[in-house]
């Protein structure tokens, strides 16, 4: 089995599904000859031709809207938005149309599209290249929101997303694109879109996170282990609809929960998890659910981004709060 990076796993999944299903098309800026600015689509135009791998004009609203039209008319478009900071102009199409085509036509039509976009900070990029918009997408009815954190997840979840009969927003952690490799068997096997992943088992505290922050959270679990605390690490992976059961089961065992997210705190997805865990897990909770998140300030440019994003230290501190909580 090959050792691949997360972005290579994306590429594998795309090639695999385009081979298997000829209705799959890829569209976006620079996805053809250039292979995408992160090379996620590299080689696809040579294998599948420019009719199925479309370099589009520079207009994200158009990309999303065309994907809706393609999906309704029988294709399975996989659209790439170059950075999620440029995905806000797709919201109208996703919320008002992609997520409603099936509903508003009472099942006469459907919209099986995927919108892929890199997310998150930590790569010293220019403005708007480090956004974390997952909460906004997770608030929208009728869609799925997926955010893998490893090559294997990326491969299996992207296959599932493309095969899913409904629209899927597929967020990719830029920071992890090339951070590490993993064995990924290119066997066309999808992973489920309705469950979170238990990355590490533990009994003292449940750390819940997703996307790019999984990396720091695992490091925080390591640090906690050195102190003698066994942290359970859950990767939500599919944020909408999300698997609250696994999270609650874990918190029932540990009694403590920290939710980690690099997005701004107010009305972020960390608040959603914290609210649900607090609502359904109050009896098992021995401490309030801690949110370790980005601040409610603008994601700074490169020179301060490290100060903005939750660090291993901040996650550990959050865990200490939960573990040492005495009210």
């Amino acid at each position, binding site marked *: 089995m090959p050792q691949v990076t997360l972005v290579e796993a994306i590429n594998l999944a795309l090639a695999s599904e385009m081979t298997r299903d000829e209705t799959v*098309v890829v569209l976006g800026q620079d996805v053809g000859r250039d292979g995408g600015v992160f090379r996620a689509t590299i080689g696809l135009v040579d294998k599948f031709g420019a*009719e*199925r791998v*479309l370099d*589009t*004009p520079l*207009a994200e*609203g*158009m990309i*999303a*809207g*065309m*994907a*809706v*039209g*393609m*999906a*309704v*008319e*029988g*294709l399975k*478009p996989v659209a790439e938005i170059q950075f999620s900071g440029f995905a806000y102009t797709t919201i*109208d*199409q996703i919320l*008002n*149309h992609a997520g409603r*085509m*099936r*509903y*508003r*036509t*009472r*099942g*006469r*039509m*459907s919209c099986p599209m995927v919108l892929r976009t890199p997310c998150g900070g930590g790569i010293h990029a220019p403005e708007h290249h480090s956004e974390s918009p997952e909460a906004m997408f997770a608030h929208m*009815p*009728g869609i799925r929101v997926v955010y893998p954190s490893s090559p294997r997840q990326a491969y299996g979840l992207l296959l599932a997303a493309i095969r899913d*009969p*409904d629209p899927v927003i597929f967020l990719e952690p830029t920071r992890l694109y090339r951070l590490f490799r993993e064995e990924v068997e290119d066997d066309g096997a999808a992973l489920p879109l*309705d469950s979170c992943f238990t990355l590490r088992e533990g009994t003292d505290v449940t750390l819940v996170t997703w996307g790019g922050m999984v990396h720091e959270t695992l490091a925080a679990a390591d640090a906690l282990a050195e102190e003698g605390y066994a942290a359970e690490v859950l990767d939500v992976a599919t944020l909408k*609809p*999300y*698997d*609250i059961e696994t999270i609650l089961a874990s918190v029932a065992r540990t009694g403590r929960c920290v939710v980690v997210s690099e997005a701004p705190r107010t009305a972020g997805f960390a608040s959603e998890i914290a609210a649900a865990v607090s609502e359904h897990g109050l009896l098992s909770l021995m401490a309030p659910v801690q949110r370790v998140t980005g601040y409610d300030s603008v994601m700074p440019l490169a020179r301060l981004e490290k100060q903005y994003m939750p660090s291993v230290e901040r996650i550990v501190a959050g865990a200490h709060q939960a573990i040492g909580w005495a009210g």
Partner: protein
Amino acid sequence: MEPVARFEIRYTQFLDEHGRAAGEWPAFARDNDQLVDLYRWMVLMRTYDAKAIALQRTGQLGTYAPILGQEAIQAGVGSAMRSDDVFLMTYREQGVQLMRGVLMKELFLYWSGDERGSDYAVPRRDFPICITIAAHATHAAGAAYAIKLRREPRAVVCALGDGATSKGDFYEGMNAAGTWQLPLVFLVANNQWAISVPRSAQSAAATLAQKGIAAGIPSEQVDGNDLIAVREVMDRALARARAGGGPSLIEAITYRLSDHTTADDASRYRSADEVAAAWKREPVLRVRNYLIAAGAWDKPREEALVRDCNERVQAAVQDYLDTPLPDPAAMFEHLYATLPAALDSQRSEALERAAAASHAGSA
């Protein structure tokens, strides 16, 4: 400073506002039976439209957007399209919808606030009404791309209003159509008003047709109150699109004779004189006058037609009124192909609440 590119916008009219023929007529228009058939559709549209307003006024329908004055465009488009073409529309294209097979009952359901009204038995592949202005312009490009990719001899028609041409989506959709030479016809029904905003305030462009120049696609103007002209330019544009000749933009000049919707009062912002002048150019009378002059129509036939239209509309109203309210469970049907387990509890809660409420209501 030599010119590197030149453009012009042409205007087509075959039947002037007095119902008199102008120019060299296309073949179909020389066949009075065909014109009579289209005239019948126009009268049916007007009958349906008046009834929908009446239903709204009596609390039996929600807010409704009348099509009064735009029947020539709609009969022209409706008759030029083939059943396997794809139609994308706004809320003011019910006439085209009827011609394509959408049931009046479905339209009434839709305008009453019932999603089942968009589950057209026929035509299955037409898009539902797009309320967010111009968002469907890029859907149209996507659908046309799919059709082109599969090498099907079908075309897509995207209808929108004059106001819609100000929106970026319209431009992005046109640009996509040009870039990939898609089988797509944009039909701008320029009825001079976007709610209270007159055409002149939408854009400094002298014509709306010239907006297509920005996307490099063939663009022209047509008298939208002239059934024959609309039908002819649509025929040509659709034939070219189906044959792989690429997209076009047609600006059809008409006038919104009614209020914007039943929630609007147009007398607040436009003069009675302007409306009276527009009535002189209205499309239905124009065809009737021509047909009468040509000896192809008369009073008895008109009376029979009116009766027939009324009966058909009335039957549809009854069908509509007989349709039971949707079940609360519908809120969770067709949300996803299969309802995710995570939503089960919300669904149960909604059903319990509904049962409790209806129990309380019946007690």
